[in-house]
């Protein structure tokens, strides 16, 4: 045993030694230790440096509220994790921990100079100082600040761990495995309710499990013994799931909760065996019982942040749970009775202890107990200063004035090696408020407690403001029975004896004999905000707690102000002279403790990150060296490079081939909607801008769909398959949205229409063959079919058979070439494609991808919705007036085309752009200006599509320009970083204006 391991407990197995390193040095602890308890057992208090002033800081607590003792775990490995609270990590063999926020080392930290110049870095220092010169921010100030600030290091490699998600449903979820949670879970489970009990520690019992004081008796047993028995009974219940190492992350509406279970974090690296690291539970509970407990408050006085200053109940836990003494010469500084339990525990182990109490007296049993033992108590006193740089060595105390607002008398110095502080308790109302619950302020002990309103959750135990053992047990029993509508709880006849606090006194900021400006009374230990920072913020005019919080950064560190928020509020209230209850609190947002990204993402990593949709021809594309482009979730061939061609070279070749002989495109990803019903024609009339009633069976028509605001939404060709049967195609990316929109209108606006919509996108594979030789290839594929213009004209469709497989052939074109689209059921898609390639071989049929498709259609001035339009373009802006029916009474968006704004003549309109230098290719998205000298430069439009056309042997572009319709021939500029490119506005149909090739 080490000097500080002075006690044997049932929670730490002192026969099982565990070795670990801290800052490279090897230490030993035992199985059952946390990193914090193991470090303390080795006499180590100094863990890190503070964020702003780089002051030495030590372990302050024993739980998730820890602000100071945050470490980097397993530095320089893929598994490294920053900002791990030493109080929460269970010790395992080989654990490597290191301190953070110190350079070059923990013991000598150069940033400590910030502490000396701290009078010059008050609240808002960064906001005030680094404002000028402006150019210094990016290259000098920010990198420097980041270097000296920062909390730990992020891993640089992908996370090798596995994370999991699981859904769970239950009748009752109990949050917290302390005494009130255990009582609640037992009542629920014994009454045949499926119950889940979650506890963030590795064992149940909360703080009662180490409460061995004789003043706390339940049914004639010490409360810890009684609770032990209850836990072993609990473990026998069938319909109770107990989840330890599981912390609640979020409590959403309708009792939907997220909890994170640590599965292998506590295991040595070689024993994890590829197991899941953490699991995120998504729980839907009928009823929730919150038994989250309370957090002990620190006291705010000068230099209250030195290593060796620890919360009093944590000192008790280290002693009675881990068997570790945090010091051998202790002083306890308190404003309440609970710290006396720590004093008695220390005394009983033979450790020197004195008490400083700001109250004038207290006559409870536990105080009498301490007095009877002969423990020295300094009543009506406060600590005014502490000494010791890397570890506390002594304190100075003074008497308090009558009203507690000042100090009187002489300073009295006392030596110590540990100062336990207790400022009372703060109920953990986070869960309650996350779920939408409100809070009430309880004046007598200055706490916010839940206002019970919800029918679906309650708060029990100390998170509900019940601090004394008797009220915890009895109120929990009463409330849970009522909440679950149960008559017999099993705890009705229980007898509880406990010490009861009679004297209460709270001073948020303890007075001092020296001026406040010379003190450092820390409120937020992790972000280094002090009481005077908060007062400065108030003097500078900040009033709202939310503003003060952000200006001083109080409560904004990784601990989210678990220790600091209440003191900040209290000091604001005192300074402003208002009641604390009227200020409200800041918002408690999830997660309660930091969540790893891995736990949030779960299994949705790598190939499971998103769904990948592939056409039936995909395999062929891969074998033929296609480069793919993501279009929505689809993988579409982008281009097919041959012999190391780059994108440009491949696209030039593919585009030329498609116009000179034949090209083939996998068009399967276009959205396809099967429309049937006696009102199908009328429906199309209402959703497209053009007229559909007179479209003959077997004919195809291009349609443009608007939003109700008149802006172009989608486009595509629709084919009339029968009297009451159409096949609509949509853009690849718009398919799902178009179907939803059409369903919306059908179900809500026009339920009288007899129309049925079915998505058939995945049902058919489409091979599109274009080019002057396409007809010859189709003749080879379908030797019995007549492909003459008379028998099979442009914009028509026919059924056909290929290899006994039924198919639909549409003669439609998106390239301006003679073109056929062959549709077969997807299971025959690849075979169709291979037949086409074989038949086209003698014409050097060239597979082309989306990039070539875009180029070919741009030569023809065909728009792509989403590329040349952006949700602000009407068909009139696109110079597509021809497709907007003047005769139809109504269609979606019609009325909006006659609004004053949509009729403006200076709207951005689609034009063609030709660069003066035909080899200069514009960048898509580049801005367009008309006058270079005018300041500020007015941007009148932007380039939407731009390519080098191999068929025209020059650069072409589509653009939208204000008033562009009337600007044909006008010179404009496209300013780039190094040059201004001269362009001329042109017609946007660059190639085959007479449409001769479609019927070639």
């Amino acid at each position, binding site marked *: 045993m080490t000097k500080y391991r002075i006690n044997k407990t049932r929670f730490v197995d002192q026969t099982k030694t565990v070795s670990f390193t801290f800052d490279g040095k090897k230490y030993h602890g035992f199985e059952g230790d946390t990193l914090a308890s193991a470090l303390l057992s080795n006499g180590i208090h100094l863990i890190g440096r503070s964020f702003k002033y780089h002051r030495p800081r030590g372990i302050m607590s024993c739980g998730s509220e820890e602000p100071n003792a945050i470490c980097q775990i397993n530095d320089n490995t893929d598994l490294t994790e920053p900002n791990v609270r030493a109080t929460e990590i269970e010790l395992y063999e080989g654990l490597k921990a290191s301190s953070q926020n110190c350079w070059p080392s923990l013991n000598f930290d150069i940033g400590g100079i910030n502490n000396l110049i701290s009078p010059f870095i008050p609240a808002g220092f960064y906001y005030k100082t680094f404002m000028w010169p402006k150019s210094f921010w990016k290259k000098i100030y920010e990198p420097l600040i980041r270097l000296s600030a920062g909390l730990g290091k992020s891993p640089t490699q992908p996370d090798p761990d596995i994370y999991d998600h699981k859904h769970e449903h239950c009748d009752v979820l109990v949050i917290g495995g302390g005494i009130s949670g255990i009582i609640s879970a037992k009542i629920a489970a014994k009454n045949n309710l499926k119950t889940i009990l979650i506890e963030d520690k590795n064992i149940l019992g909360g703080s009662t499990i180490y409460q061995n004081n004789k003043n706390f008796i339940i049914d004639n047993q010490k409360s810890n013994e009684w609770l032990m028995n209850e836990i072993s009974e609990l473990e026998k219940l069938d319909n109770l799931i107990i989840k330890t190492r599981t912390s609640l992350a979020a409590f*959403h509406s*309708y009792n939907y909760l997220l909890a994170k279970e640590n599965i292998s974090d506590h295991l040595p690296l070689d024993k994890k065996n590829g197991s899941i690291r953490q699991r995120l539970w998504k729980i839907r509970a009928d009823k929730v019982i919150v038994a989250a407990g309370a957090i002990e408050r620190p006291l705010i006085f000068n230099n209250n942040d030195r290593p060796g200053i620890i919360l009093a109940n944590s000192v008790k836990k280290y002693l009675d749970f881990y068997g570790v003494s945090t010091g051998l010469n202790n002083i306890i500084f308190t404003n309440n009775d609970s710290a006396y339990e720590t004093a008695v525990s220390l005394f009983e182990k033979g450790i020197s202890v004195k008490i400083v109490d700001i109250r004038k007296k207290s006559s409870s049993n536990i105080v009498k107990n301490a007095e009877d033992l002969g423990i020295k108590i300094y009543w009506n006193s406060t600590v005014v200063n502490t000494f010791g740089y890397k570890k506390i060595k002594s304190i100075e105390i003074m008497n308090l004035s009558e009203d507690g607002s000042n100090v009187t008398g002489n300073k009295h110095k006392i030596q110590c090696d540990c100062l336990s502080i207790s400022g009372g308790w703060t109920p953990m109302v986070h869960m309650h408020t996350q779920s939408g619950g409100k809070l009430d302020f309880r004046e007598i002990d200055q706490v916010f407690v839940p206002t019970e309103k919800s029918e679906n959750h309650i708060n029990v135990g100390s998170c509900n403001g019940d601090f004394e053992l008797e009220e915890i047990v009895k109120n929990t029993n009463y409330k849970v029975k009522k909440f679950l509508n149960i008559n017999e709880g099993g705890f009705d006849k229980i007898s509880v004896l406990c010490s009861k606090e009679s004297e209460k006194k709270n001073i948020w900021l303890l007075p001092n004999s020296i001026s406040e400006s010379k003190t450092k009374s820390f409120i937020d230990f992790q972000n280094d905000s002090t009481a005077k920072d908060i007062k400065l913020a108030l003097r500078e005019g900040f009033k709202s707690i939310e503003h003060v919080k952000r200006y001083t950064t109080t409560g904004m560190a990784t601990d989210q102000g678990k220790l600091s928020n209440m003191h900040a509020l209290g000091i604001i209230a005192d300074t402003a002279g208002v009641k604390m209850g009227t200020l409200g609190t800041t918002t408690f947002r999830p997660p309660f403790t930091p969540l790893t990204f891995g736990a949030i993402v779960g299994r949705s990593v790598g190939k499971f990150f998103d769904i990948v949709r592939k056409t039936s021809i995909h395999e062929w594309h891969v074998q033929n060296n296609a480069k793919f482009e993501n279009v929505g979730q689809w993988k579409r061939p982008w281009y097919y490079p041959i012999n190391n061609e780059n994108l440009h070279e491949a696209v030039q070749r593919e585009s030329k081939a498609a116009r000179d002989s034949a090209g083939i495109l996998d068009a399967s990803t276009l959205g396809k909607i099967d429309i049937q019903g006696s009102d199908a024609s009328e429906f199309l009339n209402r959703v497209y801008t053009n007229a559909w009633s007179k479209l003959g069976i077997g004919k195809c028509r291009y349609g443009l769909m608007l939003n109700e605001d008149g802006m172009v939404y989608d486009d595509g060709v629709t084919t009339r398959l029968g009297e009451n049967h159409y096949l609509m195609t949509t853009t690849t990316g718009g398919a799902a949205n178009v179907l939803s929109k059409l369903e919306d209108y059908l179900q809500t606006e026009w339920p009288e229409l007899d129309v049925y919509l079915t998505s058939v996108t995945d049902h058919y594979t489409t091979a599109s063959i274009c080019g002057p030789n396409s007809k010859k290839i189709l003749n080879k594929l379908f030797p019995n079919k007549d492909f003459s213009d008379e028998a099979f004209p442009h914009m028509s469709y026919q059924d056909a058979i290929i290899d006994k497989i039924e198919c639909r052939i549409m003669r439609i074109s998106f390239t301006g070439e003679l073109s056929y689209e062959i549709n077969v059921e997807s299971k025959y898609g690849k075979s169709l494609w291979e037949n086409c390639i074989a038949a086209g071989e003698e014409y050097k049929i060239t597979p082309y991808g989306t990039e070539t498709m875009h180029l070919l259609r741009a030569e023809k001035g065909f728009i792509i919705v989403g590329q040349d339009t952006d949700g602000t373009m009407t068909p009139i802006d696109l110079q597509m007036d021809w497709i907007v029916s003047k005769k139809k009474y109504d269609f979606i968006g019609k*009325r909006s085309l006659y609004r004053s704004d949509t009729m403006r003549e200076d709207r951005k309109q689609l034009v063609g752009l030709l660069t003066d230098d035909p080899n200069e290719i514009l960048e898509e998205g580049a801005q367009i200006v008309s006058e270079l000298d005018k300041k500020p430069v007015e941007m009148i439009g932007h380039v939407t599509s731009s390519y080098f056309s191999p068929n025209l042997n020059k650069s072409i572009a589509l653009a939208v320009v204000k008033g562009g319709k009337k600007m044909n021939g006008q010179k404009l500029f496209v300013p780039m970083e190094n040059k201004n490119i001269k362009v001329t506005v042109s017609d946007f149909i660059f190639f085959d204006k007479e449409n001769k090739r479609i019927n070639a």
Partner: protein
Amino acid sequence: MFVINCPHCGERDQSEFSCGGEAHIVRPKQPTELSDDEWAEYLFMRKNTKGVQFERWNHAHGCRKWFNMVRDTSNDKIHAVYKMGEKPPVI
């Protein structure tokens, strides 16, 4: 996250649904008869109520049916769900 009682399928998680905004805004039968202001009122203006609101929801990852829901936007309490075309309940 709410539990929504789809009038066609029963209780399901909110993640299966999408919200379509304020309900009972009827598309004008004769849009061309409307002034710009009247059309804008239909097209753009929404109440954004704090409190009880009638809204449209779609069981997008379920039956794909649209229906109406009465929800208190201040506390997310769902007062009623009813099918399209049914009369809104009095809340």
